[in-house]
């Protein structure tokens, strides 16, 4: 009898472990819908700093949802959006401590230009993604390609880490 009970408990433990493993696997492939309240970083109207606005995002890939929420723009009228119209996130994934995000060409084509504009665009994305666990820096790609720069000022040939001086 004891043998049977012991076997049952063992099976239960294995069962639980297997379920956990399966969920972990599924989560990796972004099939589970998750929800999180995050800080979205938008620009101040003098184009000097980034300020945050809280929002709850929901979806299978929270990195993508966070960036999509940034693309939608702020609700606060004292803040300005940092990503131009029509931009789509083509791909976003985490490798070690770096998030690689691939944007559609609208992020260049529809951009207003200027160092001020470009810094705010780039850092709003970096800071928003850096708040996720284990994310230290962000590498930008455009239409699947590595790029020198976004609109001619920032060095995007390497991943970028958050810049505390630009946050108010």
């Amino acid at each position, binding site marked *: 009898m004891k043998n049977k009970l012991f076997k049952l408990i063992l*099976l239960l433990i294995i069962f639980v472990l297997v379920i956990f493993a399966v969920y972990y696997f599924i989560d990796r492939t972004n099939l589970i819908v998750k929800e999180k309240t995050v800080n979205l970083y938008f620009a101040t109207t003098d*184009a000097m700093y980034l300020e945050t606005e809280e929002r709850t995002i929901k979806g299978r890939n929270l990195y993508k949802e966070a960036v999509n929420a940034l693309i939608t723009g702020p609700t606060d009228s004292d803040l*300005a959006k940092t990503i131009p119209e029509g931009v789509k996130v083509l791909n976003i994934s985490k490798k070690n401590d770096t998030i690689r995000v691939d944007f559609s060409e609208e992020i260049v084509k529809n951009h207003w230009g*200027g*160092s001020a504009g470009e810094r705010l665009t780039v850092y709003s994305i970096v800071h928003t993604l850096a708040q996720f666990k284990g994310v230290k820096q962000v590498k930008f790609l455009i239409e699947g390609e590595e790029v*020198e720069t976004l609109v001619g000022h920032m060095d995007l040939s390497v991943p970028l880490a958050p810049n505390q001086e630009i946050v108010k």
Partner: protein
Amino acid sequence: MNLKKYTVIFLLLILILGSQAVLSADMPKIYINGENKTAQLDPVKSNGAILVRSKALAQSIGAKLKWLGSINTLSITKNGKTVKMMVESPYIQINSRTIRTESPMVIKDNYTYIPFTNIMDVFGFLIEHERISNSYYLFKPESHLKEIVWGPNRQSLILKMDNIAPYRLRLTDDPKKLIVEIEKAALESNFRDKVSDKNYYLKSRRIENQATLQIVLTSKYPLPINSDEVISEENGNLLIQFMPQIASINWKQDNTLEIKTNGDINKPEVSFLEEPRRMVLDIPGVLLSEFEKNLAENKWIKDVRVSQFQFEPTILRVVLDLKEKKYLNIVNQDDSEKIVLKPAQRARVFDLAYKDHQIMFKTDAPIEPDLFTLQNPSRLVVNLFNTYREDNMADEIKVKENIVKKVRVGRFDSQIVRIVADLSEMTAYEHEQEQYSKNIYIHRISFANKFDDIELLDQNMYTNININVSGKVNYEVKKFSYPHRLVVDISGKEITPDEVKLPKPVGIIKEMRMGRFELDDETVTRVVFELSKYFNHNVVSENPDNKINIALAKSEIQSENNLIVLDAGHGGFDPGAVGSNLQEKEVNLKIVERLESILKSHGFKVMLTRKDDTFISLNKRVKIANNNGARIFISVHNNSSSKNTSNGTETFIAPNKTGDSLLLAENIQKQLIDRLELVDRGVKKEHLYVVKYTEMPAVLVEVAFLSNPREEKLLQVDGFLTEAAVAISQGIFDYFEKFKD
């Protein structure tokens, strides 16, 4: 109850869950009008196509669905269009047409599944497939092309749209073809092609999976456009502007030849040639096309031949084969769409003279002389077509000048009078014709290269010498000692020393004098500067040049590197920020050009990463500075943001270069704020490409905001741009001063 059994069950569980994960990741997502309908449509793969639930599909596009069970047929109706399909049948009926499909309708779990791409196409939806996320976006086109027509005079093509959607014009290697692509657009159901005819053929198609309408125009002759920039919007339509084309050549009843085009044209270049006798007209900016030719029998022209002489720049060549001893002249008239030629009377040439360093003669009618120089010996030849010499006109004039030795006149043949000027050296020349009265036209031929003036400029670190000449000259700068003298030898000048006013000596220049002498069979004009002291000098100008520029150092400066590389941001297809009136790339270059001349006049060597409107990569800009060992690097930009209230001036340095770069940036920012009086956004450290990878102290200046209406207006004022350049240069000078300390 055994372990094995349970293990198997659990493994199966994992397999099922796992495979579900894999499978569903492979299934496409379908968005209709922006809404994700994947769940309702339940896409299923079949024979390479995707099938979806018919009821859900019909519902999402607002169509009526009818299932005729007795004949296993489904019918979907919307807006008078009916699509009928039979289970397992490869044929789909659309109204009265039938098309074939590789993936017929199937029944699965009591639902009918139909191929969605054909169906959506029929009901006027555009389909865009995003490969990376395997998503299909279906939506109604944002704009429709109603018709394509010719503009007035066939000078343009008008694409009539109900809405403007993103468009682009593409030229190909084939000059007879052009392609227009309009995104998210479709042809209107009653689209009219009013362009295709015996010379032109229009074809339109949808680019698969990209929701883009493509219109291809093919023509019998090369198309009358020369760049991708000729497409624009006008009155809600797309307009493609053509170059003028030749329309007709007619010999008219009043004995004139009329060459007509369908647009405004410029004056052609005219030349006359013999053997065979012909008049060649090269008309710029006109394209060849089918044209009407009506040459009635006449006494002047045998035939007219037309060809496209070249592209880029575009030139149409019209050759008139002239009859024996006949000439035509272009008549001045008001219609800029045609050229009119009239038989010319022979003109009389008289009163040849040499006065005020110019060859002068008169004619009794306007003529187009042909001038060219020949060598061995050096001479200028002037051919006057369709003229005759007055009997008492001089044969020869001896000239006692530097450039012109002798002027001779002769008759080249019975129709051409030729004037030859024997020159002591090859030189540039200019011909002018002025109408003095009804029958008198005065011609003047002058020779280039004379002194304009000599300027001396005394500054902090240098005394500058500027010798301005009217044309490029070869020169040599020599330094002699005991006493210290700087000597500039200019070869081959048409000038006498007492014609130039010498300026008052300043700085370390004590005295000045000029002289002329022969050196190795060459005439040299020597300008001598006697100096009170000498350290070193720098020849800033190029050789040859028409502005000789020398900087004399006033104190002990190590013959150090004083190369400054200036970088005008953006350029070419990258305009930078775009305001309502300005493009950043132009403003940047304007400031850089002003900055260049200020720095040069202070004795610095300056190199520009770009001198004109061309694109160069950030990497290349950095290479130019690094490979040339620049002393400092300044990149000039103007700013922009998404809000038009942002304003002010800021200067950037790289985060890892805070020594010299910071000193340079602080000095430049201070001068800009003091002089331009905009908001001080400060000196900032940032990972900007060009200041990061340059190996010398480097700054990037953002002068003002193009997105701010007030600052954009300022950037349109020359004085403001000059002040910005002055400020940056003063910041640089202050930096060098402090650096010396």
